[in-house]
Structure formats: structure tokens, C-alpha cells
């Protein structure tokens, strides 16, 4: 659903940027924690799990808000391949926002690990212990994490391309503060 608004609502922008911070933090926490034996390993792991669940919940909220508020239309003159790339990459981003926390949770369940978040919040196992499933889910969580990082990087590059090169209002639609559309060209 699209709206005739040029920008996402304040709530949508808040969700977008809050989740952007969380998700980017997750990439660094994830690769950092699996490559260290330092004492930070323990809080990093707890943060990774807690933030993962938070992202899953925020993604649910975000999808509901999107269904209600819609999205501003892409510029009419956006070439078809870019339009397609924009749509596909957003399916990918949403898919991974939901898939990564679920894969992580399922992976820990298949490894018979208790899933304990900050605040001693304990999540139930969503799978029975199983070595083959643990490996499959571990690989999926790991490979998709790199794919997710690449996709976010592409998303950032595309956003900057809209902001700096095309200057077509797409970036401004999600810009965190103010609206720069209408300010004079450099």
C-alpha cells in the first residue's frame, strides 16, 4: 500500500533508525563474539540474544505500522531495474529481520542451550536437541548474517545514491530529522 505522503510517518522513521542501530550493532557483536575468548564474550552473547529478540519484536511492530500507514511512492522516473531492486531488497531486509532471530533461537534450542536474555527472561526451546539441525541452523545463521550485512551495505549505498546523486527525495522520505527537500541545490 502506498500513501500520498512524501515521507514515512514519524513513527516509521523512528522504528527504521532504531532498528538500523540495533541491526548494525548485531553484525559487529556477532562477528566480534565468535572471534574472541575475552571476558566480553559473556555480555556480548547475552546482548546478542536480547537484541535479537528485540529486533524480532520491533520488526513485527514495524510490519503492522507499515500495513496501517503505508509507504510513500517511489519517484515516477525511477528506472525499472532500480525499482525492482528496491522492492526485492526490501523483501530481503524484512525477511532477514524475522529469520535471523528465529534461526538463532532455533539453533540454540537444537543445541540444548537454555535461551536466557537480560533480566533473566527465559525463552522456551522451539526445537528438540538435534545435532544435524544444530549444524544446519548454525550454518544458516552464519551465512545469512554475512548476506544480511551485504544487503544492509547495499541499502546504505542505495540510500546515499538517492541522497547525493539522484536527489529524488527517496532518502529524505526516511531521513531521521527535518526535511531537506526544498532546500537549494549545492
Amino acid at each position, binding site marked *: 500500500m502506498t500513501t500520498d505522503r512524501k515521507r514515512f510517518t514519524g513513527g516509521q522513521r523512528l522504528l527504521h533508525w532504531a532498528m538500523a542501530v540495533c541491526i548494525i550493532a548485531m553484525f559487529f557483536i556477532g562477528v566480534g563474539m565468535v572471534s574472541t*575468548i575475552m*571476558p566480553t564474550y559473556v555480555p556480548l552473547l547475552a546482548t546478542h540474544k536480547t537484541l535479537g529478540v528485540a529486533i524480532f519484536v520491533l520488526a513485527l511492530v514495524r510490519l503492522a505500522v507499515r500495513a496501517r500507514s503505508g509507504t510513500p511512492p517511489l519517484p515516477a522516473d525511477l528506472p525499472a531495474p532500480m525499482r525492482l531492486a528496491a522492492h526485492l531488497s526490501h523483501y530481503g531486509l524484512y525477511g532477514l529481520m524475522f529469520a535471523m532471530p528465529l534461526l538463532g533461537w532455533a539453533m540454540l534450542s537444537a543445541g540444548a542451550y537454555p535461551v536466557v536474555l537480560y533480566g533473566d527472561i527465559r525463552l522456551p526451546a522451539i526445537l528438540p536437541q538435534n545435532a544435524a539441525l544444530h549444524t544446519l541452523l548454525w550454518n544458516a545463521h552464519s551465512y545469512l548474517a554475512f548476506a544480511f550485512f551485504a544487503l544492509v551495505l547495499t541499502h546504505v549505498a542505495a540510500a546515499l545514491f538517492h541522497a547525493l546523486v539522484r536527489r529524488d527525495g527517496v532518502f529524505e522520505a526516511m531521513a531521521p530529522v527535518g526535511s531537506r527537500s526544498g532546500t537549494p541545490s549545492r
Partner: protein
Amino acid sequence: MPLPPSGPRSTLASLAIIGAVCIGATGAFAYTAGWLSPDRLTPTKLVDALAPPTGPVPGYRRNHAKGICFTGVFEANGNGAALSRAKAFATGRHPALGRFNLGTPNPGAADATVRVRGLGLQIATDDGAVWRAAMINAPVFPVATPAAFYELLRVPASKEPNAMATFVAAHPEFAPFGAWAKSPDWTASYAQEPYNGLNAFLFTNASGTEQAVRWSFRPQAQAERITPEDLAKRGEAYLEREITERVAAAPQRWSLILTVADPGDPTADPSRAWPEGRRSVEAGTLVVERIEPEADGPCRDINFDPTILPDGIRVSDDPFPAARSAAYARSYDLRTAEAKDYPKRTSEAGR
């Protein structure tokens, strides 16, 4: 209104900015992942260093590879509740499962060749909390830091002629463990060993008071001292046969002793014992009721990660639990991926 499209020069500059952002982000990611820091001590390096010269045995734990499962109960007497609000210390019977093991990467190692014996333990409480621990019979840990432990693991592979002597000279903290390891009075049963947590953890009680604690499971069975030479005569997998028969005849018991640090005691260094006379609390009894071969047993697929702790216990400034957790996870990931290499049946000796 959208801005007009930018000119060619600023387009180039803009593309350069975009490229720089992407390269910068990728570089930061690579740095965080350790790809730019070959000297970083990673879980992979630590686990690889545990492997015997012939390489790791696929499908098995990368250390403490030889073991046998048990189930039983932890009978808490309530005394531990003064130190920790964890349900495991509330008076009652809490289900336990665990694993007796030998500190070797070789699941086929002969009993008499391995000085370090271990106990992996999980206590689950009806509030849903899980407490896991992995303990050994040594009274102290060999070294003070995970980095020193990595150095120690690399000694056998060293080309240097006096590598061990050099290591000991550089790590005087190794002496108490070294003396214990050389002492000839081994015991003849897993049931006769003490299992010491060695690492300090912070216990928080119901009123929020936090204290550093180390724990030990002390055997109630009388120790039968035996030399490794005599143990060797009883067979390569005597200990598993013995504990199976012993527990079939009667449950075996250990008392859980919690020892509280005084201010100034070395909580961050498990190679240093705390002075005698520290306050200690007997918190209950571990009762081992049933032995099962590892292959089909409930302990096989459990990672006895010492950072899996209930509310009321948390890691202290001791750097080892984190390092062990990271390494155990790596070992678990490897062996679960190699599950097809793990034999479906235990050796006859283990039955």
C-alpha cells in the same frame, strides 16, 4: 520538492563518498571479526591447540573427550540460599545430569595415562533455570590466564628442546598444579575424586548481597589410592566399568562445598588457591543414581558451558569462564557437525 540531479563532478565525488562508506564499514566489520588481527586468540585457535599431534578425533569433544553419562539429583539442604538466590540452593531435590570424563582430547586414551579427571554437571530447577558446570580433580588450575593456557597447549608441538622448562620458568604459577600432576597417589574410581570448580563466581543472595565463591564437590566415598602403574593393570577403560558397577550397586554421593572469598583473595586467578580457613558452606549433596554409556546417554549432546548460570550466580573477574564458554561452543559446533563420525555404540569396555 526533490532537488535537481547533481552535475558530473559532484556525482563522482558522491560516488567516492558512497564507496568510502562501504569500504569503511566493511573494514570495521573485518576488523571486528578478527580478520585483520592474526594474533588474536580466537576460540578456533584455542580449540585447534587442544588437538593431539595426530589431529582431533571427529565427533568428540575437543577436550575431555573420554567420558560416561550419569543422571541423579542434587539434594539442596538450604544452606546455600544464604549466598545465592538460585533455586538450586533452595531446600529440595533438583534433577541433575552429568558426565564423568578424562582430560584428554583422545576418547580412546587409557585411563592410567590421564591425570586430570573431570565432572560435567547440569542442575535444572523447576523455575526453569539451568546451571551447568565443568570441574576437575586438580586443586588449582595450571595457569593464571587464558593466554598462558594457550601457550601451555602449544608446548608439546614446540620445536624448542626445553619448551616445557622454559614455559614453567616463565609461569611460576604452574608449580602447584605441576606438583599435583606429578603426585603418584591417584584414585581408583571416578567416585573417589573431588571435583573443583576452580573459577570464582559471584553469588547474589535474596537481599542482594554479592560475594565471590568457588565450589567443590567432595566425594563421600573413601579414596582408594593407586599408582598409575597399578591402575594401568586394571585395563584401559577400567574407570567407566568401575563407576557403572559401583553406581548400579549403590548411588554415589558428593558434598557441594561453597567457599567464600575474603576481601583481597585472588578471584581472577584460578591458579592460586585461597588461603585455608575461608568461610565455607555445605550446600547439599549430589547423588549419582544411574550411569549410561555416552553414545546413547543424556550428556552426549550437552555443552557443559560454565557460563550457563541461574539467576543468583554470575561470572566474576575470573577470565576463564568466558574463554572456556567461547572454546566449548566452538568444540560443540565442530562435533555436532561431525555427528556422523561418532560411533553409534560405545566400546564394549564402556558397557
